[in-house]
């Protein structure tokens, strides 16, 4: 069963994201890591100057 039925007692935004295997945690990790790519390329640009 890939997507599990919503089972939290109180419906909420995070509960809604938490409906499949690791969906919520992958979402949060992505949010944290994506901007680091921007920081990386920005630093690279600075170093090249």
């Amino acid at each position, binding site marked *: 069963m890939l997507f599990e*039925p919503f*089972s939290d*007692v*109180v419906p*909420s*935004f*995070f509960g809604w994201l938490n409906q499949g295997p690791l969906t919520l945690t992958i979402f*949060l990790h992505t*949010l*944290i890591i994506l*901007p*680091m790519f921007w*920081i*990386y390329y920005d*630093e*690279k640009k*600075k*170093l090249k100057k």
Partner: protein
Amino acid sequence: MANENKSVWTSISFWRRSAAWVTGFSAILLIWLTFDSVNQIAMGSDADLQKAVAQKREINRVPAPTVINYHIDYKMDEKRGHEVPVIGEKEPFFGKEWSPQEAAALLHLGKLTSQAKNCMNCHTLLGNGAYYAPDLTKAWLDKAWRKGGPLQAMTGKSTREEAMAEFLQHPSQYPTHARMMPNLGITAEEAKGLVAFLKHMSSIDTNGFPRNFSKTVEQFKTGGTNAH
């Protein structure tokens, strides 16, 4: 050495900026999650509780103090895959029904007493504390305190709450193991409060902790198979 600073991976400013971003954003996420969670674990109202009982479903993860007026059970929930507290019919608590104000005052006394007597440095509450004495998360539901159960029988009382209150006031008179609970000078009122606190705690939705709560010890002691 001229190439040393060409790589972003060895640049201090890259790591400093990344550290600041990750720390700041994680902290913001935690605060956001906290608003959501605090909202979910806030104590419900008596009206919510009545609605939950009438509709036979959970509305609050932490019910109102008046939950002490109801029968509480701990049952397997097929959908969630673990046991959940089930609030059932009304039942008297110390022989009466407690109004919302009385119930709140009693729970307040109980919670305060649980801290004043330092329960947490022997027992665990919701699994947190010391490991010298049994976990109290679902102690109210323990089969041993039921009518006919060994702990209730030991105190000579006829209800669960009276038996627990009696034990709390004179713990070293009722040893259940070489390791005994010391006499902490708990008064009759404080004992009532503590039992209310325990009953309320057992109604909290703990996502199935402790699992398979309190199977019978007899079954374990006889050993072999379950065919008896």
